[in-house]
């Protein structure tokens, strides 16, 4: 299968996700995008979901022995096991959060960053905030989320340099800690935030619960900004927007790269220009705010505004405690 570096026929792919693909977030977007990419490129797709965060080697081996042409290991926790199986069974894998692990024909990385979308969300949050404080709550600090946290902070500061940004991590890899999400978000709201930018798989529902049941310090409503997926179907009127990811172009490009012999030689990205990265519009976004943010979006796409992607957790925290500094406007 290493011969795929010279181009190979791909008839089927598989995607492995740690939770069920009904989370309106990371897992669901991954699976939906894999299905869409498979349809687009004419291949079959196998979905292995709810695998948890433990050892996925048996599942990877089984899929490899079934003859799939590409295994997409859609969790940062899989980025050690998947390359090992790729080497062992010579089946190409795609992993996340290890951009330095490319191996031609065998291992591709798609550490994505929605920082430009998060920047727009930050601009929007600053525009609608009444209290002058916004919050960022995360259930972990993987590189993709760090980039979005930094993008959001840059957006807030660009819109209103004096605004306070409260940043809190629920716990180490607290992706399913809904109670922790509820508890930490309630504290961040009590610290003055009236807009919460939340990043967390299952824990994001706890954040949403806190937003729905806790008043802002001014007695008004708290709004929530989600990432990756669209929680509109389960929203009770508190969703401001979401930084939506569409991974279809990424997965389709991987399949084409396998066929063309360039798999594992480059990085992939989602971007505002092709709408693989975009903001969700809800009824909580005033018309003028939406128009203004869309104008900023055009400036980002045109390169008139540059948003830095910060993947390192320490650098993100430093950005939060920084109350001024040069920011793109």
């Amino acid at each position, binding site marked *: 299968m290493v011969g795929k570096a010279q181009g190979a026929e791909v008839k089927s792919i598989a995607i492995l996700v740690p939770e*069920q693909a009904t989370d309106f977030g990371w897992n669901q977007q991954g699976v939906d995008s894999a299905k869409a990419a498979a349809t687009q490129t004419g291949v079959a797709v196998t979905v292995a979901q709810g695998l948890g965060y433990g050892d996925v080697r048996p599942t990877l081996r089984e899929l490899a022995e079934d003859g799939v042409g590409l295994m997409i290991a859609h969790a940062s926790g899989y980025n050690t096991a998947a390359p090992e199986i790729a080497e062992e069974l010579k089946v190409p894998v795609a992993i996340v959060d290890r951009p330095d692990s490319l191996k031609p024909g065998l291992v591709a990385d798609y550490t994505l960053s929605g920082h430009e979308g998060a920047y727009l969300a930050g601009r929007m949050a600053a525009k609608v905030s009444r209290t002058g404080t916004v919050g960022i709550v995360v259930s972990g600090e993987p590189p993709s989320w760090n980039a979005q946290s930094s993008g959001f902070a840059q957006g807030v500061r660009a819109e209103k340099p004096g605004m306070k940004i409260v940043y*809190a991590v629920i716990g180490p890899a607290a992706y399913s800690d809904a109670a922790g999400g509820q508890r930490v978000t309630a504290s961040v709201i009590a610290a003055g935030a009236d807009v919460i930018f939340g990043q967390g798989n299952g824990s994001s529902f706890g954040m949403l619960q806190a937003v729905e049941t806790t008043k802002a310090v001014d007695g008004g409503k708290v709004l929530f900004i989600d990432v990756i997926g669209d929680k509109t179907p389960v929203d*009770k009127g508190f969703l401001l927007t979401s930084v939506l990811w569409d991974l279809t172009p990424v997965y389709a490009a991987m399949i084409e790269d396998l066929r063309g012999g360039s798999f594992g030689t480059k990085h992939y990205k989602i971007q505002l220009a092709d709408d693989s990265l975009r903001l969700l519009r809800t009824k909580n976004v005033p018309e003028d705010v939406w128009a203004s943010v869309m104008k900023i979006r055009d400036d980002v796409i045109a390169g008139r505004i540059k948003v830095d992607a910060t993947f390192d957790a320490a650098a993100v925290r430093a950005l939060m405690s920084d109350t001024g500094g040069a920011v793109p406007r």
Partner: protein
Amino acid sequence: MDMILSAAFLTSLVAGMVVSGVPLLLAGLGEQISEKAGVLNIGIEGMMLAGAYAGFLGAYQTGSLWVGFLYGIGAGMAVASVMAVLCVRLGLNQIVIGIGLTLGAEGLTALLHHVRFSRSYPRLPGVETLPLPGLAELPIVGSALFDRHPIVYLAVASAVVLSVLYRRTHLGLTLRAAGDKPAALDAAGGDVIRTRVAAVLCTGAFAGLGGAFMAEVGAGLFVPFMTGGAGFIAIVLAMLARGRPLWVLAGAALFGACLSMTTALQVAGFDVPTDVIQMLPFAAVMAVLIVFGRGASLPAALGSAYVRGGRGSDGERS
């Protein structure tokens, strides 16, 4: 820094301590009952998870948190009954069965959630509270500690009740004998197996209630794997407490306080790596273990199945 000194923020931190500490308290008290009787209940994480799912289901279906708590107790006892049969009746390895029960409960609750709730993610409305007259009006701690759901007061009271039960009642003596000298209990006419089965079922009830509290009050919803190791922390608390329920209460409060402190430090913008801050609760528990737990004496027959006339002076079989 000013924001962490506001009354609203401090109140939310103390409230966070209560909300995160109560499930640990209930599960820790439950674990202690099993351990007193000689059963090392590693499956408590699974009992909590089952209680969390069932508790949320009950509260969501009926609109009553109390019904949800009953569902949670029932689910915890159902998981515990498997442990009672396999470990107490059949004498299988308690650690292996406990791990198996936890993994099984994780899979089952994730599956049930997927079938029932994964497309709607329903959430419960805000929790009704019972303010304690004269105390609830105190600044900061008043609403955080004394204006809570009644189950919080019951959880604290149960630590006191169990403390009295262990020290001053025949039932407590029987329980301790089942863990320390099961053969002596047997010789005195007591029923070791029945005592241990009852203890394991009580553990399931407490753990299930703790899980239900986490889902209904702590989060207001259920998501798969949401207990996130709380059951294992409860085991540590129970062992640290050296058989004393009030120490479980103190340990749960300490852990909850440290969890809230991690949020406070982050919100205050302390320039310390988040990973270091997040270690605080675990480091605190380890420090307490080192200082106070070194001389911990666990029941002599803990973890061993009892067989009348079996090997060893006490009839236990490891």
